């Protein structure tokens, strides 16, 4: 037991970060599963983090209320900006949502009396326990798993494959895109709220372009064919820099090379149910023949 305590003392932060990154990866998976390349998730995470932190620090709200607030605020923002932007597709949607992310960052930077500006918020109570993170991840996975198996999940998939054909199947395309966008924002906000109460400090630079690309990389690397991919991708992206620590200065370079190789050879991500299915079929055929 001692060795576990020792391990936990050193690595608890890393393990919990995997969980939080898993939530972030799942948040962008939702929009990707609908065929939308929306890059606003870092901003939604930031909105969630600041809302929750201000609730606990300034309003003395209990942690549960702070978490709920951290989910509600980005959801409302997503509904407002989703109406005009979700009519766009492809690169244009990515540009619009990136622009929104920049607006959020600059707004946080300039609302100094609330957010502390560039200095960020310091001394956020460390309320996040390990079971908060695990519970949140399990809950989100459960909800998304059920969603995938329902008419809504099928509608997402149909919209991703062909939006026009989906609309002629009686699917309200825009409302489903809004749902995916808003639900993704809520999950990103939850991740932000949990993270803020884990790391003690948040600043505007944490929620910028780099973070947005990180979130996207995790999901693309892991694979968007199911729920396992994003979580796996999040774990790898979080752990890789730690595992490569011995390489010192070459660390980020090797990190990048590994990612490039994976994406080159497995463009559909590491976890690809379709490929597994084909493998199984081929092995079966091989045995029969």
């Amino acid at each position, binding site marked *: 037991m001692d060795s576990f305590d020792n391990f936990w003392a050193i690595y608890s932060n890393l393990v919990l970060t995997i969980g939080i990154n898993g939530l972030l990866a799942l948040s962008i998976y939702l929009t990707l599963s609908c065929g939308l390349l929306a890059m606003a998730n870092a901003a939604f995470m930031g909105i969630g983090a600041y809302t929750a932190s201000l609730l606990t620090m300034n309003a003395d709200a209990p942690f549960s209320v702070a978490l709920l607030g951290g989910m509600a605020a980005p959801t409302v923002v997503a509904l407002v900006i989703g109406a005009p932007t979700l009519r766009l597709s492809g690169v244009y949607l990515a540009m619009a949502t990136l622009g929104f992310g920049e607006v959020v960052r600059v707004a946080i930077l300039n609302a100094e009396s609330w957010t502390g500006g560039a200095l960020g918020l310091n001394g956020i109570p460390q309320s996040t326990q390990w079971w908060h993170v695990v519970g949140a991840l399990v809950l989100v996975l459960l*909800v998304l798993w*059920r*969603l995938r*198996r*329902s*008419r*809504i999940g*099928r*509608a997402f*998939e*149909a919209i991703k*494959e*062909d939006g*026009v*054909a*989906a*609309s*002629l*199947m*009686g*699917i*309200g*395309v825009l409302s489903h895109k809004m749902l995916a966008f808003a639900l993704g924002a809520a999950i990103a906000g939850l991740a932000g709220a949990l993270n803020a109460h884990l790391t003690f400090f948040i600043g505007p630079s944490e929620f910028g372009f780099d973070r947005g690309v990180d979130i996207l990389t995790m999901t693309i690397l892991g694979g968007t064919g199911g729920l396992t991919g994003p979580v796996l991708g999040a774990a790898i992206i979080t752990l890789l820099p730690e595992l490569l620590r011995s390489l010192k200065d070459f660390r980020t370079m090797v990190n990048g090379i590994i990612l490039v190789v994976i994406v080159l050879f497995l463009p559909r991500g590491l976890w690809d149910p*379709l490929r597994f299915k084909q493998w199984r079929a081929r092995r079966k055929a091989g045995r029969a023949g």
Partner: protein
Amino acid sequence: MLKLSNVSKKFGGLTVLQDVSFEVPAGKVFGLIGPNGAGKTTVFNLITGLVAPTGGGIHFEGQSLPGMKPHQITRLGLGRTFQNIRIFKEMTLLDTVIVGMHAHLNYGVPAFMLSLPGFRKQEQQAREKAHELLSWMGLTHKADDIADNLSYGEQRKLELARALATQPKMLLLDEPVAGMNASEKLELMAEIQQIRKRGYTIFMIEHDMRFVMGLCEEIAVLNFGRIIAQGTPDEIKNNPDVIEAYLGREDDEPMAGVAT
């Protein structure tokens, strides 16, 4: 059942349709023919709400369609297929057909979150119905395959099954036999006859004259955005305007099909 009155459509300065009026009667197989670029697919796009008409009225069972969203029009009972096949490539055939039933599955959020009996029953019924529709099209044995692995003709049939899954009163078929070989055409002809006997009204656009003349009870001819003739296959065959404007210019297979 479906009525177009003085419908026109302009794309910029280009007039694609002008004063197009015709009525598709309930329970029949109605055909819209015309040379390439006559505006046939635009007619379907106007009806299904993908593009808005510049002028004129479109009514389905008394309901005015322009201004409605495509998914709302589908829910009124208009199902359609596409000239350039639009299937969901990475979905299984079974799932593809169940997507067509989207509007008819009405379980709520708690039902699928908790997998309540109502959810399971509806999903089970949807699967059974989807298997039935696939069997109509002769695709039962491929129900769990990915749609992308199907041949061209099979993909067209899958589109048809998916359109039927929306429980349409009227089926709009956009060149259902384009790219099919002779035996596939005959097969599909028989299947469309079967579908018609089940009580669906069918409205099709087609190039293949033998196919159109064999299936349709009434035909409208579109040329350069105008309806130039309407009537039974025999009337159309013998209409001098049609022969001159459309058939007379071609001396290959379509002409031969009409002459017989």
